[in-house]
């Protein structure tokens, strides 16, 4: 990839400039831009870094306080007029395609004639500038939607310092004897850091997969074993069930057959009839015994109660006679003498009338007292006997009723015996012509088969439950097995993912080790070659080594380490050699812009370095920004076969600003 042109408008001292570059092919890969100190050489690098990253990385202390726009530009503006700062870099990719990157920043002149920023609110840059990119797709140039992203792929910002650099600062790598900065440079530019991150991420993924794999424990075989055992049990149970169902059906068939034979007999249920007849005979016997007993009791009863019964007419007559006598008053009333005496003593009747002594009433009551005493007992006896007679009469009546009842019961028993004997006669008539033994045998058979059928039906029910239970257990186990099978599939997938991770890790780790060693060794070789080729003290230094820890060692002819005693110019040569080696070995295809590459080199050695530079950076586009002191005629002569274009910066200073023009040398 190489830079085809750099266009600058109102950028720093460049009001409107376009610097064109040639393809680095055919050996002419150098462009020299010559200018005095402060003329704008470094701002050419700044123009490129600002365009790419929105950051002027090589800004001098003097320029840091100045506005980015050219201070001459607002001179002709009226309030409200726009001032645009713009840098455009056009690249050519190795396949010939163009990439145009344009960064701009808008200002305007306000009413007070002050230049104010008009920020791009959509910008992600710190300075609110606008970045645009067009990329050649086929024959057409198309706008790129994410220019920052593409730029990071073309020249990653983190390695920019190894392509766009100030030669005078290069020796900082070797000021201290520390391999850290060197190693960092090698790792970054060789993309070993990408390999390191890939390895770290692969290790993390591997850990994740191992954890997931360990969470799965396939038990398919164990579960399948259980399913097989259950299936065997199921088959056995099912066979038993089928066999038992067959036996039950056979028992049922035999029962029906027996019942069929029974149904053809003239009497059904002969056994039942015989049983009934037996029961009837027994009952008749019992009832007859009961009847006989009852009759005996009646006789006994009659014998004991008959005299009483025979006295009934006498008792009735006596009661009548007493009643008649009483009614006729032939039986004196029953008076209590004590009571009558009390009436007489009190001279008061029970009705309250006064009974005066010696009055007729008194005498009458007194007469009652005299009469009462001889007949009182008789009256009492008569009346008492009449009561007893009534009781005796009732008893006699009860006896009659009791006998009547006994007779009723005897009659009932006799009727019952008659009824039972009638039923027995019917049964006798019914079964008299049957082969009861044969029918009984049929019935026994039917009963036996019925019982067998019932037993078998019960067993069938149990077996069906067992079969169903076994079947549902098999279904459950199959579900579990299928789950485990899915787990096993996941397990196998994880195993292959792990294997893949491991394979990738092995290659990545080996690649890292190999690339690190190759890069270190090649950088060492090339740095040594470039250094010894460029250094003007040809006999002083014999070797340059870069250790595994990336510490650089320059060997003095005496065998001593001399890195600490190198002059600034010698360190710059070492740095140039190292950067050249780094760029060549990195495999990164990006143009180089070196500001003041020979700034610290005294006049004599410059020619030697200039002669060696093309071999250090072959094929790659190299833009050298040099002062007149650096780009001496001898240097120019040394480089002439490799320089395609030469430019000079013509710098003009005004009171209110400056202007620089990049003019191609004739």
């Amino acid at each position, binding site marked *: 990839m190489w830079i085809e042109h750099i266009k600058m408008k109102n950028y720093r001292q460049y009001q409107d400039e376009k610097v064109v570059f040639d393809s680095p092919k055919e050996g002419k890969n150098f462009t020299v831009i010559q200018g005095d100190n402060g003329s704008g050489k470094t701002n050419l690098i700044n123009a490129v870094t600002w365009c790419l990253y929105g950051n002027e990385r090589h800004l001098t202390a003097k320029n840091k306080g100045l506005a980015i726009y050219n201070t001459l530009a607002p001179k002709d503006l009226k309030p409200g007029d726009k001032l645009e700062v713009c840098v455009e870099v056009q690249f050519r990719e190795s396949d010939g395609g163009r990439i145009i990157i344009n960064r701009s920043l808008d200002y305007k002149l306000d009413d007070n004639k002050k230049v104010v920023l008009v920020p791009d609110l959509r910008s992600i840059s710190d300075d609110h500038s606008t970045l645009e990119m067009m990329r050649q797709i086929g024959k057409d140039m198309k706008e790129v939607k994410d220019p920052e992203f593409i730029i990071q792929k073309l020249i990653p910002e983190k390695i920019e310092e190894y392509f766009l650099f100030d030669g005078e600062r290069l020796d900082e790598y070797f000021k201290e004897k520390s391999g850290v900065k060197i190693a960092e440079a090698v790792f970054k530019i*060789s993309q070993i850091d990408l390999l390191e991150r890939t390895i770290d991420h692969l290790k993390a993924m591997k850990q994740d997969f191992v954890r997931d794999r360990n969470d799965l424990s396939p038990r398919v075989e164990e579960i399948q074993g259980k399913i097989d055992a259950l299936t065997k049990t199921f088959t056995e149970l099912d066979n038993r069930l089928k066999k038992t169902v067959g036996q039950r059906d056979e028992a049922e068939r035999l029962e029906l057959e027996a019942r069929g034979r029974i149904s053809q007999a003239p009497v059904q249920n002969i056994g039942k009839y015989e049983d009934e007849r037996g029961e009837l005979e027994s009952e008749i016997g019992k009832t007859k015994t009961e009847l006989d007993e009852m009759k005996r009791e009646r006789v006994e009863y009659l014998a004991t109660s008959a005299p009483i019964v025979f006295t009934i007419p006498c008792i009735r007559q006596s009661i009548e006679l007493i009643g008649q006598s009483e009614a006729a008053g032939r039986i004196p009333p029953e008076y209590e003498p004590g009571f009558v005496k009390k009436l007489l003593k009190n001279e008061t009747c029970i009705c309250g009338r006064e009974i005066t002594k010696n009055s007729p009433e008194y005498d009458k009551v007194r007469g009652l007292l005299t009469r009462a005493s001889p007949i009182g007992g008789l009256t009492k006896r008569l009346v008492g006997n009449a009561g007893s007679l009534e009781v005796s009469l009732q008893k006699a009546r009860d006896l009659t009723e009791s006998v009547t009842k006994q007779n009723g019961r005897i009659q009932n028993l006799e009727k019952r015996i008659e009824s039972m004997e009638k039923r027995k006669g019917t049964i006798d008539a019914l079964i008299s012509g049957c082969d009861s033994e044969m029918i009984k045998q049929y019935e026994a058979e039917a009963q036996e088969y019925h019982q067998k059928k019932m037993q078998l039906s019960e067993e069938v029910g149990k077996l069906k439950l067992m079969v169903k239970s076994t079947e549902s257990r098999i279904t459950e186990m199959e579900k579990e097995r299928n789950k485990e099978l899915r787990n096993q599939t996941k397990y196998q997938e994880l195993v292959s993912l792990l294997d893949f991770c491991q394979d990738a890790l092995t290659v990545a780790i080996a690649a890292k080790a190999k690339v690190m060693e190759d890069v270190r060794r090649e950088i060492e070789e090339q740095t040594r070659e470039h250094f010894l080729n460029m250094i003007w003290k040809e006999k002083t230094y014999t070797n340059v080594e870069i250790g595994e820890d990336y510490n650089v060692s320059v060997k003095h002819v005496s065998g001593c380490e001399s890195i600490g005693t190198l002059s600034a110019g010698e360190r710059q040569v070492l740095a140039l050699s190292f950067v050249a080696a780094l760029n060549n070995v990195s495999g990164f295809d990006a143009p180089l812009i070196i500001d003041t590459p020979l700034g610290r080199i005294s006049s004599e050695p410059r020619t030697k370095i200039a002669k060696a530079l093309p071999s250090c950076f072959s094929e790659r586009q190299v833009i050298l920004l040099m002062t007149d002191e650096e780009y001496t005629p001898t240097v120019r002569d040394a480089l002439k076969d490799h320089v395609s274009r030469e430019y000079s910066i013509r710098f003009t200073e005004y009171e209110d600003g400056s202007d620089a023009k990049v003019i191609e040398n004739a």
Partner: protein
Amino acid sequence: MVNSGTLNRRILDYIEQADASKEVQDFLKWALGFELEQAWESNPQFRKDYERSIKASTGKSGSR
């Protein structure tokens, strides 16, 4: 896929010549490109992309 032209040719060469399947080689090229893209922007979600790419490389539909 990152333009492999932006990756170190030396690393790519080594991977292409490594004794590994083409899937592993292609995956590593993808991973390097991925890391290159993430170089200027941290990506804590690398697992998702790595897993997707590994599964695509192994032809596994994915189980996690």
